[in-house]
């Protein structure tokens, strides 16, 4: 028992991480679909990591599916999320409190991430972001957020509303007033 628990916690060693990713666990979407995922990859989700660690042993972890009850975790979203963590599980760890946080924020997405997140179905895109947020996968939430912001770049308010299907809840007068305040940003010369 104790050996097993140590085994699961020993994340520092790359070999251990690789070996652990050969262990497959089951994740269950809110729609009931069950999907397999490598243990190290799945633990990129802090939610899953905490659940697995509270269970303690490999035996339980590999037989019982972990239920992800949030409605954003649809079958399609969960498949995308597993694809992402299975690609990224051996990335070097990121310290979100560290000084180079600012540099990382400004960094462009990798080619793979761009291709991964550029899905035509916007409901799926938002499900992936909401599900990643629920599952506490910071890296993937960041990929989604950067992708949305890159699509907003240079667009007008109306274009942004149409693209992201946002309801304009300003009155014409209110909108006009904000437009006047920011008139300098719209000026072309």
């Amino acid at each position, binding site marked *: 028992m104790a050996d097993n628990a140590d085994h699961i916690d020993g994340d520092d060693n790359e070999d251990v991480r690789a070996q652990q990713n050969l262990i497959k666990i089951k994740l269950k979407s809110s729609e009931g679909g069950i999907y397999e995922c490598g243990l190290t990859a799945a633990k990129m989700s802090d939610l899953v990591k905490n659940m697995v660690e509270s269970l303690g042993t490999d035996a339980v972890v590999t037989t019982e599916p972990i239920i992800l009850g949030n409605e954003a975790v649809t079958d399609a979203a969960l498949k995308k999320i597993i694809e992402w963590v299975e690609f990224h599980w051996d990335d070097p760890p990121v310290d979100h409190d560290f000084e180079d946080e600012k540099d990382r924020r400004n960094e462009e997405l990798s080619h793979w991430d761009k291709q991964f997140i550029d899905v035509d179905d916007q409901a799926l895109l938002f499900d992936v972001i909401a599900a990643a947020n629920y599952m506490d996968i910071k890296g993937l939430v960041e990929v989604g957020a950067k992708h*949305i912001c890159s699509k907003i770049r240079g667009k007008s308010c109306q274009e942004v509303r149409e693209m992201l299907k946002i309801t304009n*809840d300003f009155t014409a007068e209110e909108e006009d007033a904000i437009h006047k305040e920011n008139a300098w940003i719209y000026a072309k010369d």
Partner: protein
Amino acid sequence: MHNRCLKYKTDVILTQEMSQNYPKDSLDRFGDDMCEHILSYLTLEDRFRCECVSKQWRRLIYTTQTDFMCTYSQTPFIYCKLFVDYERIIRALLHKCVNLSYIEIRDQRFNERIGSMLDIIADCFHNPLNEISLPLNGSQWEPSGDHMIQLLDERLTEQIPSAMRKTSGLPLNQWIKHQLNRQYANVKLSVKL
């Protein structure tokens, strides 16, 4: 019996709330925390441009802007506009970005405008702002440096609690002078408040 009635009413309210869900492909589905996080990756230019998308955006779009580094590569449009209309831009920046803590305008081409820029910054000063980095060359040093100290000292004595006004035992104006002198060799003015 009475209890049961109450419970029934609660259930009805919950069901109604559930059915008011936003469409899944609409960004409106996200609450403030998530929306704010997504918008935190916008450039400053896009924030100004998109403030009037919705009330939620207006509320959240500037809160995560904590620094302003005016360089051509970071904000090309604002960089160019700053030559034409710096007063409006600096006022808008300080007025809207309530969590702005760092301003950096180090391009030597702004040298002539530094004095007036400082006036505006001091005029719009707000508490989170704790570092200003500006260029200065030797000939402008005396007037601008003294001007800076005077401006900041006047503003800060009003706005910063006395406990924060002292650093390493020096009164604020002496401390600023000390900071300015340390930076003098690099012909760069950087003041940490």
